């Protein structure tokens, strides 16, 4: 009943086992599937992305082109509570991220199944996407993505820059 998992394109070890069993999972998301090939041919270039978590704390990380924000949060162990509960399978909205409008407008078109999950997300905005469905590209260098802010925790904004 479910759309086959998109974890075939994830580089995180958690999903690698599954990917090894089914390296060419057919994905009903159409043109997005080319991401698998893009990952293989990526130039390994690093893209600077700023993550602002639910408490307003900013972390700046270098991301490999082709990874998703979900991959990054897991790999770099960013402090975002409960991020990516379903590990990239379009079954929740816990990797909900708010993009800058200029970036959002240039992202690949969203499919119904992603909108279905976003509809359930807390703090939905016009520039919201699921972090497991977006592929980081070099033109996104320097972008900031925001996790929806918690209602009752706005104290102390700090900056933490982590190295690659």
């Amino acid at each position, binding site marked *: 009943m479910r759309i086959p*998992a998109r974890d075939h394109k994830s580089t995180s070890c958690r999903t690698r086992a599954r990917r090894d069993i089914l390296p060419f999972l057919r994905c009903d998301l159409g043109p997005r599937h080319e991401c698998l090939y893009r990952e293989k041919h990526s130039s390994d270039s690093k893209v600077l992305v700023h993550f602002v978590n639910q408490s307003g704390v900013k972390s700046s990380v270098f991301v490999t082109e082709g990874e998703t924000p979900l991959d990054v949060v897991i790999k770099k*162990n*960013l*402090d975002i509570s409960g991020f990516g509960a379903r590990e990239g399978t*379009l079954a*929740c909205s816990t990797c909900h991220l708010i993009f800058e409008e200029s970036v959002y407008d240039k992202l690949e078109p969203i499919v119904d199944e992603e909108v*279905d999950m976003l*509809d359930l997300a807390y703090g939905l905005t016009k520039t919201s996407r699921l972090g497991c469905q977006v592929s980081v590209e070099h033109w996104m260098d320097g972008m900031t993505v925001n996790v929806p802010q918690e209602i009752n925790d706005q104290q102390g904004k700090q900056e933490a820059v982590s190295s690659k």
Partner: protein
Amino acid sequence: MKIHGLSSASRCLAAEGGVRGLSSSSGPRVCIVGGGPAGFYTAQQLLKDAAVDIYERLPVPFGLVRFGVAPDHPEVKNVINTFTQTAQHERCSFHGNVNVGKDVTIDELRQAYHAVVLSYGAEGNRSMGIPGEDLPGVFSAKDFVGWYNGLPSNKELHPDLSFETAVILGQGNVALDVARILLAPVEMLKETDITQNALEALAGSKVRRVLIVGRRGPLQIACTIKELREMVNLPNTRADMLPADFEGIAEALKDLPRPRKRLTELMMKAVKEGGDDKAEKCWGLRFFRSPVEVLAGADEKRAAGIRLALNKLEGSGESVRAEVTGQLEDVDCGLIISSIGYKSIPIDPAVPFDPRRAIVPNEMGRVQDTAGLYCSGWVKRGPTGVIATTMNDSFDTARVLIQDMEAGKLDLSVNKPGAQAITALLQTRGVRMVLFSQWEKINAEEEKRGKSLGKAREKLLDVDEMLCRAK
């Protein structure tokens, strides 16, 4: 593997000797009652600052993730990976097969720990409260779902699936899950973790038509769009809706917020397009109808139909109410499933309980009038919401508890014995605890049995057998 919840700061501190002296003999100790999503998510957040012990009634962990999520939604169960990491954390221990309220009391737990969190969910269900509800052929959705998901207490359910029409009361995601499992082609289920006896029963099922009935109208339907979309796309089925139920809906669309609008548009598409006429099976939503009586067959021995009262809507917006019109409608059916809500029950007289709302009365997770006692998940908020809702709620309770620790509201100067004391107590009472490493043996056995049947796993259905495997 790292848990996302651990901040780099607290990890560093832990490595250097601990926040608040988190060595094994001192430091805050918290006990969590309930090993489902609420329990695990609360534990995950607390582990930064405390040692956490989780007590679970069954030998096996994960609660509704294991017993509630539909077998054809395996990706929803991915959270088990993060829960497993939590259980394996050095400051966390899982104790299965412990019935809190019977094997050990809440007061005994409160003596052994600095704080206790109630996360035991909702194991009861709301009854329809109508005549005939106890006739054979009528089931709660909780029991029906428990049956196909291998909950030990539902293994003898044996629902009779030899009737053509099934009626489900309630239109939430659980109702749609039940409808989908009843009508899905067996090929779609046979590799999942559905129990073998349920699979065989469904393979021989004569159910061809499922009606999903709600008190109010299309704009009040409680399910979410993903589940409705799965019904619309279900192979070899067509949608059988009543256009009359949708009068005036098209005009209301433009004012709806996006999620409600998309859901309504999908329903209207199903009304218009129906589906393949050659399809053998059909499903339909029926609105403005409340059950008033289960009708027995000629032999008076089992359910043969259901009498529905027709409603009209009064009020507007969030407070739309269904009111009776006096009209009635009888539907012939042999299987009736009531999916109108789960319900929490009190497990210990020492804990305040609100019988009207069926929750533990609390203020942001702090149990009313009881210092050091907290709650998270359905027992705190009521039995609604998806796992992500429970996750956020559990994080909130954990945060409140940590705030209380930092504000000195919990007396952390006293050392508490924690699991050491409770384990000793349970031993004298002859209770056999199941540790997480022992659950892993049960897990391995289930996967092994599943493999031989071409399935993700074959769940053990019997508590005694689980205990045997856990040795």
